[in-house]
């Protein structure tokens, strides 16, 4: 392959075209297309087994796709860009006998940061993250949460341009999840591209500008979170004093009241005609709310009920484990 073919549009952090990965005849990733712009927080959303980790591993060059091509920071040889990338795998791992600051420096050294500089930064970062007392402790002496933080710091110690986190919230308690969210936002504020996979919709909804929904090895949706939500019409929750009148023509015909409460999808004509009809038709509005669908509703709509249910189960199981 020529160098021009190997290098691609460097404006994108990630580009993947029709990548496929099969294991033992099973297709784990089935023709995924993905473009992730630089400087964004991007979420890869899907249940366990959907193909998220395999996709990330292909993007990082840990494994090669069987078909298709991928570019990481413009290069088709992702490992060659490893100095600019930080990666936190789903299965956390550190050398148990290493001191915490040394573990951070080692991870930086793997990605080209001089060891001495890595040690200096490691100590400083641990101080900044409230782990000053643990700097000289061996990894085996740290709590699980502290060890995870050390690994996360090791992922960013070399100040990468692109950070890829595979299920970063997995196994963290609520407090540490909050810290991690702040850290992700902080990195994004510096212009770093952050990509993370998750099966918890709330994290993606809170953090991401754009998402890709992965289900059964495919990506049925990729784009802005708002675009995903816009695929569903807003929901109207209305409580009226009267149960009948000329205003009923503004409500979908198949909508039946629950007592004096009405729940229906906002008509195509929009809010104004509906409001006008309710007021002028003397519906006697007691309460009215128009809710934009959440990412969860959009996910169910896009990926299907079964996939969404699987993801909720994964999330519940993980909650129990944590």
């Amino acid at each position, binding site marked *: 392959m020529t160098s021009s073919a190997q290098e691609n549009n460097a404006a994108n952090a990630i580009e993947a075209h029709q990548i496929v990965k099969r294991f033992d005849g099973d297709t784990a990733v089935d023709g995924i297309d993905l473009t992730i712009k630089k400087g964004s927080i991007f979420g890869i959303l899907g249940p366990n087994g959907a193909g998220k980790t395999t996709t990330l591993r292909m993007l990082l060059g840990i494994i090669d796709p069987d078909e298709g091509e991928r570019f990481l920071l413009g290069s088709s040889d992702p490992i060659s860009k490893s100095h600019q990338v930080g990666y936190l795998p789903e299965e956390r*791992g550190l050398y148990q006998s290493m001191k915490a600051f040394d573990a951070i420096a080692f991870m930086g050294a*793997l990605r080209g940061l001089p060891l001495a500089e890595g040690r200096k930064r490691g100590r400083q970062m641990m101080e900044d993250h409230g782990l000053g007392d643990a700097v000289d402790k061996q990894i085996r002496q740290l709590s699980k949460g502290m060890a995870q933080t050390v690994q996360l710091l090791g992922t960013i110690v070399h100040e990468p341009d692109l950070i890829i986190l595979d299920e970063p919230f997995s196994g963290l308690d609520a407090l540490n999840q909050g810290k991690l969210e702040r850290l992700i936002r902080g990195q994004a504020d510096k212009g770093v591209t952050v990509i993370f996979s998750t099966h918890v919709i709330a994290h993606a909804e809170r953090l991401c500008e754009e998402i890709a929904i992965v289900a059964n090895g495919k990506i049925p949706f990729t784009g802005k979170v708002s675009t995903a939500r816009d695929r569903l019409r807003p929901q109207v929750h209305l409580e009226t004093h009267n149960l009948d009148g000329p205003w009923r023509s503004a409500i979908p015909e198949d909508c039946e009241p629950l007592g004096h409460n009405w729940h229906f999808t906002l008509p195509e004509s929009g809010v104004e005609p509906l409001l006008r009809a309710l007021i002028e038709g003397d519906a006697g509005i007691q309460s009215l709310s128009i809710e934009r669908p959440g990412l969860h509703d959009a996910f169910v709509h896009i990926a299907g009920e079964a996939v969404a249910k699987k993801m909720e189960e994964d999330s519940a199981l993980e909650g129990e484990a944590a």
Partner: protein
Amino acid sequence: MIETIRAAFVIARRDFTAIIFSKSFFFFLLGPLFPLIIGIAAGGLGQQVRKDIDRPVIGVALEETQSAKLIDARAALAKNLGNGSFPELLLLPDVSPTDPNIKTKLDTASTPLTAIISGSLDAPLLTGSQADVKRWSGRMALLSETALSGSNPVTVKTDFVATTGSSKKRTQIATAQGGQIILILLTMILAGMVLSNLVEEKTNKIIEILAAAIPMDAIFLGKLFAMLGMALVGITVWSTLGLIGVSVVSSGMPNLPAPAVGWPLFCVLMVLYFSMAYLLLGSLFLGIGAMATTVREVQTLSMPVTMGQLLVFFLAAFTVTKLGEPIEWFAVAFPFSSPFAMIARAAQMDNIWQHGLALIWQGMFTLIIIRFSVMLFRRNVMKSGNSARKKSLLARMRG
């Protein structure tokens, strides 16, 4: 108490079924076969090598008719007393029975000679090392008497030399064998450390972090060379302590017979061939270790590999006395036995260029194994989900 027994049963049942239904159990069942094969191979090999080393050849520098009579006498006596009772006789037609330079012929003959019989059948002269002459003079007297139809008793005159081609060969073979044994012992002790290192890596789940940051080849090579460095430090310490111990016990360094390439180069080649044997076995361990998904698989698989290495060593040991024969060439060319076969050559042959070629070949093969292991690793190991763990190791090796 009953609850404890019930709980113990739950654990025992899980462990038992997990082991019994694992593919690695197959290797466990084959376990007793390996020592058996090794034992048979070692026994047969030792016997064969001893036979090859002990085969004495006595050069015959007599008049043509007397030489023929002596050879006939040997054939006749060997029929009754057994071929092994007498040395092989080799005619030396270009050596006169009264040649004053008989001693030099002992060193220059193309076939290593134990001794030379010259003069005449009724007054033979046996020239050789003191030990060999003492050992064979009686038999040569018997052969001479038989050749002369037993009319009169024959007294064999003797003449001693410090070394003969045969005695030199014996000491060089001993050096070759010693070199091989040291190589295999060190390799087997130290190559296991590579496996331990990889097991640690798998336990720590750090392998993915490494694989995402640097090329897999670099990971494998880094591990191999780190372990090699550690092994060389160990060897330096052990050999220093050993030398100090020997010099203290024997009041000075022992006067060991020199290998063909000389001691300094032989020591350098020992280090180089150890490094190659270690890298070859270590890369194989790494490849297998990288593909194994559990510590149990790694441990189980190390046994057949170690046994295989022993068989390869036996091949090299078998060929110590067969320089230049096809089987010895095979041992030289087969990468895993090559370091052992080549150190035997260093003890017995003084040409140096062949070692350069052998080292390049062994190094290339190490790289080939590493590339192959990396390919299998990238293709089969880094899978998420359960499918990878469910698939047998053999299936993973097939891809």
